[in-house]
């Protein structure tokens, strides 16, 4: 067969062979969705399709119990209420993307419009560099520098004793997780928004200047407006990255399936959480137990569906912008 492949190909042969390889990629994706769904099926079936996302008991205890069940667990062993994990994911992702988006837009405006040339020449490569740094390094700095700082200097001993029956406040928690995640997603967003702001047709900026708008007004009312598709794309990309961030968050988020209560006040910021992806990474060793395996696949399915929903949402968000004549 190799000899037959080595002879000069005709166009028709090439179409088929190359197309087959290209479709292999499609096959892989469908396989991915199918496999994950099939493995997650037992858990979803036993728990009801969506009620496993709700609250109800300590998710860590439930996972622990799953580990102890044997190879053929009854349906009751699959019981899981993963709300703390979902809550942790929504909290970290939502807040990080929001803060990161605002910070990125202002930083991008600074880089494109207000920065002196020398400052720009230093900041732009620095941002590109930060975008390439692996997430485990952010996690390392978070757990070796930020968490001890928060734990020793920002959390008073009184606060620690006040909640020590429920959780341990050691610095890792909501605050450090959000800070680390924001720092991770900001460089990518800045890069995308800066590219978009630089690509604005000069006719618009000149027209705005000729009408008497000052530099801030020009870049805000015309530039940022014209860059809205890019801002949407940056937000979607950052959301996807934040959702799927497993390792750095497992290092700095406290690793407890706990739902922090906003009523607690400032202590809320220091309480531990554990987002979905981090939970998956930490429970990988326990996957010999079928109940745990099924739960983890259910988490994977949820993440997969979320990133699909994000892509579709981003596409839909850009449709009205296309109507206005912006290049999306």
């Amino acid at each position, binding site marked *: 067969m190799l000899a037959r492949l080595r002879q000069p190909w005709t*166009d028709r042969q090439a179409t088929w062979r190359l197309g087959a*390889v290209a479709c292999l*990629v499609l096959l892989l994706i469908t396989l991915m969705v199918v496999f994950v769904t099939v493995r997650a099926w037992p858990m979803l079936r036993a728990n009801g399709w969506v009620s496993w996302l709700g609250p109800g008991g300590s998710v860590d205890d439930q996972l622990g119990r799953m580990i102890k069940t044997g190879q053929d667990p009854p349906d009751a062993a699959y019981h899981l209420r993963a709300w703390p994990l979902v809550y942790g994911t929504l909290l970290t992702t939502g807040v990080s993307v929001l803060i990161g988006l605002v910070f990125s837009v202002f930083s991008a405006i600074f880089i494109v419009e207000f920065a002196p040339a020398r400052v720009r020449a230093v*900041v732009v490569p620095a941002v590109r560099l930060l975008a390439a740094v692996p997430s*485990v*390094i952010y996690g390392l700095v978070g757990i070796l520098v930020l968490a001890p700082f928060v734990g020793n200097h920002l959390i008073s001993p009184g606060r620690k004793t006040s909640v020590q029956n429920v959780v341990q406040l050691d610095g890792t928690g909501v605050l450090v997780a959000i800070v680390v995640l924001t720092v991770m997603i900001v460089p990518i967003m800045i890069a995308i928004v800066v590219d978009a702001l630089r690509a604005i047709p000069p006719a618009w900026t000149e027209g705005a200047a000729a009408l008497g708008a000052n530099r801030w007004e020009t870049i805000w009312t015309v530039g940022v407006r014209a860059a809205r598709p890019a801002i949407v794309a940056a937000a979607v990309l950052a959301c996807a990255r934040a959702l799927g961030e497993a390792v750095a968050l497992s*290092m700095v988020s406290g690793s407890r399936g706990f739902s922090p209560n906003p009523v607690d006040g400032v202590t809320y910021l220091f309480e531990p959480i554990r987002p979905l992806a981090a939970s*998956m990474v930490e429970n990988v060793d326990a996957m010999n137990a079928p109940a745990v395996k099924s739960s983890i696949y259910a988490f994977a399915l949820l993440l997969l569906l979320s990133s699909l929903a994000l892509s579709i949402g981003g596409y839909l968000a850009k449709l009205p912008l296309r109507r206005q004549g912006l290049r999306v």
Partner: protein
Amino acid sequence: MAATAYEAPPPPPSAPPRPAPRRDAVRTWKWSHRLAFGTCWACGIALGLVCAAIVVYMGVRGVQYLNPRLLFTRPQPGLAQSTTGGILDPIVGTVILTIIGIAIAVPLAVVAAVWVVEYGRPAPLARAVESGIEVVAGTPDIVIAIFGLAIFQLPILAPVSFTASGGGVFGRSFLAAGSMMSLIALPLVFGAVREGLTAIPAHVREASWALGKTRVCTIREILLPQVRHNVATGAALGMGRIVGDTAVVVVLLGATLQIERQGSVPILGDLRGTGSTLTSYVYNASPAGEGNAPQKAYAAAFVLLLIVLFLNFAVDLLGRRRKETRA
């Protein structure tokens, strides 16, 4: 001095040429605009400070703890930091994974990109392939890792890793992890090659077809050599992503400190075996993992950072060289 038909008034003493005042003064703006201006500056300065802090801190710690001897010593399990050995195996593990990942991703991505750009019939299928690759690009790496576990624990793929005594396929090995790493690098190489191919103007292809060459021949002899550096750029980007990825390694590589061979065949046995990479080593050596060797973690992280910087620099260099040869 031109002959003008308009009688100018007695000319005032003309001022020396001066650069026209460049910008509108911020002090004349509304307060809300001045606030926004200040916020922009604050964000810019904060950005610079954070960048500097991370780079400087990692540099300082890395230089402090990185001993060149560590690069050549194998890691050992140990309680005290002085007995935990070096980081040779993680470095080798990183290199092996990168090679496997790129070796699988680049041909697949090039073929897919060539098919999508040059053939692409039926059109809905081409769009589906492109969307599919975008879906892969957007999938979290932990989901790809779990998917890899699902695939490689199938009995049919037992030769890729090994079968435990209870009959279950272990599913974790260099080959398994490398294959999933290729999925992570695939969208980057695909995007770069597709960009390169669409940038080649139509008349190049038409000239070749007009001379009677088949499409395949045109691709092989004319188009592919021209996108060689796009492939290199994509591969460098992909390598950067592979080197920095931790989730796939943690799930699919078995987390043994040293490279453990499976079976007796020399190289194939290593590939079927388990090991660690720099990223999983950092994760394990940090307080979040099993070991508690922050100094070794810093050293390994520093080496990792240097590798990523080098790859970034290579991508920049390739991009700049292309601009020079084009212009």
